[in-house]
């Protein structure tokens, strides 16, 4: 029964991945990645890691993909596909010319080489456990199954991997600050901006940052 579920989820995973690589519209690529992530969460459940599967669905397929959809809607990326790229690459405007299309074919060949090497490395290790179903994860003394539950993961995170946990949280803080710094509104893009009325908000706001109203375009920014 588990093999049936494995093959259903594996088809979803590979179809999602192929869709991400091949689909022309970035919006559909994001949706294909959502299919990929949900199928992958099913595989995690088959591997008895319930907590990671739940995090995958909630954080990845929920929050991160919503961020992607917002940025795709904001930037409005124009469609492009591999075949179109190969056809149009001979025109001088697209830069690179036939060299670029040759490089793209080389990219596909390199990907196939990576696949072969990974398969050799992973399946040719000679580890006997690779061919088995996995170690027994429940003790035979009648205890409840604890492997992969939130209590098990939380216990590990707060005892043995406390340092990794703290470093990860600090990394998230740095990334949040970096995202705000990178994506904020900068002064100097539009030169002919009228000086607006000074509001009390300008006193608490740092220079060269924008407000929500300016970001949606209802009010011209002031520098």
């Amino acid at each position, binding site marked *: 029964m588990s093999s049936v579920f494995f093959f259903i989820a594996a088809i979803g995973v590979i179809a999602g991945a192929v869709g991400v690589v091949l689909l022309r519209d970035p919006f559909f690529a994001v949706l294909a990645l959502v299919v990929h992530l949900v199928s992958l969460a099913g595989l995690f459940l088959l591997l*008895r890691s319930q907590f990671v599967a739940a995090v995958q669905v909630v954080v990845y397929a929920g929050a991160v993909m919503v961020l992607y959809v917002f940025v795709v809607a*904001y930037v409005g990326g124009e469609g492009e596909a591999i075949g179109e790229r190969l056809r149009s690459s001979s025109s001088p405007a697209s*830069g690179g010319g036939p060299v670029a299309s040759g490089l793209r074919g080389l990219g596909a060949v390199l990907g196939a080489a990576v*696949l072969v090497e990974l398969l050799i490395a992973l399946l040719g290790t000679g580890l006997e456990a*690779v061919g088995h179903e996995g*170690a027994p994860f429940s003790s035979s003394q009648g205890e409840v199954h604890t492997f992969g539950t939130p209590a098990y993961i939380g216990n590990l*995170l707060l005892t043995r991997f406390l340092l*990794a946990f703290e470093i990860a949280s600090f990394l998230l803080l740095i990334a*949040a600050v970096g995202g705000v710094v990178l*994506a904020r509104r900068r002064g100097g893009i539009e030169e002919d901006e009228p000086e607006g009325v000074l509001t009390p908000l300008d006193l608490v706001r740092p220079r060269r940052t924008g407000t929500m109203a300016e970001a949606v375009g209802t009010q011209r920014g002031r520098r």
Partner: protein
Amino acid sequence: MSIAWYLALSAIVFSLGAVGVMVRRNPLVVLLCLELMLNGGNLALIAFSRMWGNGDGQILALVVMTVAACEVCIGLGMIVALYRRRLPIDVDELRELQG
């Protein structure tokens, strides 16, 4: 299902992501393909965790998810900054750092 099946699937997903990073031009799709590569690594980590029966691989997979979220945050911030400066959203056109 033996662990080898999961490892083979993770290798396939990783290589598909690598092909996408090398072939696609849109930086948004390049970021999506990076996610694919990280997910292939995650699947291998979880499979090894199941193989040995301890939770270290799952913790490592959670850390990889954290790093992926940070990478998404910074990458999307850079794309929004590119868009605001009216630069082309195309990794082939952005060649000012190239020699």
